[in-house]
């Protein structure tokens, strides 16, 4: 108790020095907490966005060795077959709906505009499985399928590219394929949805499956992707397993296909942001270590300055251990107070960051573990970097210390 009081007194004597020695730790603690808070906020943001897709969507693609280069390979090699769709339909009890997708990039021409568009052949149930909302016009239906109709629903973003401010519904575009131009009439426009797992309707021209198979994307029974939905979010993981088993039975190679569900994406995303957060926090932690070195420096100066005092205390009967503890308490006092100030200020900074970056959609969530961690580390730093100066103080010879002026 007296030790604490004494530490407080001697630190209070030179307030500026004490304050400056705290600064490094204060900044470090703020940096760690805010870094982790930004990481947590970003994770929460991304998670919320992914979760809005509906947790029971499952997308099956041919296996690819990563990146978007796989897209081209997807269209050329049709590992997945229409029979897979039937098998999944029949043999996977936790799968509600399953539907094949044909997909390929084409030049699409509207008046003077000529641009590359992802043309997708899809059955009408695709819209309900992926929950694609209509902005204007109508969705595709079974009549379109039966008639191999040259009609399409267009994604929001690509519609703007092709038609600008014009209403796309009722317009005709031309999809060019090997010298032919297939006219397609737009019957509906989708609302902007963002990417659904690997599937981004905003940039797609969606035509009836049979139309695509007959006129644009002939894969001889092959399909580009398969989209399925689990019966419920709870059974989504079971559904994924079932699909994996069915595909493995035929292909005997897990590298040839990928079954992607929202849960998997979520865990991948959180792994990625975890790594990023860790990286940020580590960089921030370095500033805490630098702060610790600063404290060690100050404590070494303080030990030298107070050599005489140490000598007097030893003459009065202070044991070496007592002297050591006195200095340790002092350095830990600095870091504990600095840690507390840092925690307090980090809330302020977090609020500030949220305010300033509100336009960027940056969310800052201060988490308990980050507070406990950074505070704990600052206490540990006080102990670690205070140890050597305290040891030096305790090892002084009483006579030498008393002679010091």
């Amino acid at each position, binding site marked *: 108790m*007296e030790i604490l009081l*004494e530490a407080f*007194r*001697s630190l*209070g*004597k030179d307030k500026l020095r004490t304050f400056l020695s705290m600064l490094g730790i204060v900044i470090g603690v703020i940096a760690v907490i805010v870094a982790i808070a930004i990481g947590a906020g970003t994770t929460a943001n991304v998670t919320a966005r992914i979760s809005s897709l509906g947790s029971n969507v499952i997308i099956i693609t041919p296996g690819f060795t990563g990146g978007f280069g796989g897209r081209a390979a997807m269209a050329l090699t049709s590992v997945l077959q229409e029979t897979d769709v039937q098998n999944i339909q029949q043999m996977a009890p936790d799968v509600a709906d399953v539907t094949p997708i044909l997909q390929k990039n084409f030049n699409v021409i509207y008046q003077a505009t000529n641009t590359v568009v992802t043309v997708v052949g899809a059955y009408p149930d695709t819209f309900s499985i992926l929950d694609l909302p209509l902005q204007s016009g109508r969705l595709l239906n079974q009549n379109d399928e039966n008639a191999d109709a040259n009609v399409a629903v267009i994604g929001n973003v690509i519609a703007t590219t092709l038609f600008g401010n014009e209403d796309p519904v009722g317009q005709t575009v031309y999809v060019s394929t090997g010298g032919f131009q297939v006219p397609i009439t737009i019957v509906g426009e989708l609302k902007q949805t963002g990417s659904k797992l690997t599937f981004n309707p905003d940039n797609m021209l969606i035509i009836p499956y049979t139309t695509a198979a007959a006129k644009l994307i002939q894969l001889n029974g092959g399909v580009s992707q398969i989209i399925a939905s689990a019966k419920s979010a709870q059974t989504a993981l079971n559904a994924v397993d079932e699909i994996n088993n069915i595909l493995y039975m035929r292909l005997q190679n897990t590298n040839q296909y990928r079954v992607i569900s929202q849960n998997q994406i979520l865990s991948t995303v959180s792994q990625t942001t975890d790594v990023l957060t860790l990286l940020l926090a580590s960089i921030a932690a370095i500033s805490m270590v630098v702060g610790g070195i600063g404290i060690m420096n100050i404590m070494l100066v303080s030990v030298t300055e107070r050599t*005489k*005092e140490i000598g*007097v*205390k*030893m*003459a*009065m*009967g*202070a*044991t*070496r*251990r*007592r002297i050591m503890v006195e200095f340790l308490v002092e350095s830990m006092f600095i870091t504990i107070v600095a840690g507390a100030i840092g925690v307090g200020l980090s809330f302020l900074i977090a609020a500030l960051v949220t305010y300033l970056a509100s336009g960027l959609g940056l969310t800052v969530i201060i988490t308990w573990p980050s507070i406990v961690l950074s505070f704990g580390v600052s206490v540990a730093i006080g102990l670690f970097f205070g140890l050597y100066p305290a040891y030096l103080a305790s090892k002084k*010879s*009483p*006579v030498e210390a*008393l002679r010091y002026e």
Partner: protein
Amino acid sequence: MAALLELKNVKKIYDMGRDIHVEALRGVSFSIEEGSYTAIMGHSGSGKSTLLQIMGCLDRVTSGEIVIKGTAVKDMNDFQLAKFRNRTIGFVFQSFNLIGNLTAIENVELPMIYAGVPRAERRKRAMELLKLVGLEEPEERAYHRPNQLSGGQQQRVAIARALANDPAVILADEPTGNLATNQWRRILDIFKRLNESGKTIIIVTHDPLVGQEATRIITLEDGEIIKDERIK
């Protein structure tokens, strides 16, 4: 009277490195009786402070032996020495050496803190001691910092601090060296009063006036006792 402190052929050699040695004490033997008042005198550099430090267990001898209250000092480790100093020896220094960021009364309490005396008891005894050394209006002065006190007042606080754990002996090194005449008279009066009430006192000085109240004067020269006279 029983011997409180006994030195047998004590030598102290400071090793300055590069083969330079300073022989500060060249075989000193004497004993101090309980309740005595001894002055150790000698010219500057004669080894007085060295002797006092060794008697106060602040430093170890190069050779020879010291026995205090029946305990051989050389058998004690650093921890035991600290405890021993705390309970048995009270130091008074030339430059007062009060702890600057503690109040007068807290300075007096310091040795009692090290001895584990409970707070309330500590306060009470510290206040009594401050009264004993005649700090005017101690209730107020007690809460002043050393830099708010005069030299004489500081030295009286230092004496109170030396008395805190009722030590067997008070060791004072030039306690009046930094004080004006009227101030050091008061300090010597306190020592005299303490001795009259039974406290053993050893005072180091080069000033014959300061030594005049002692009942025994040991004179050092070049690390050796050249005179040991009893007065009265």
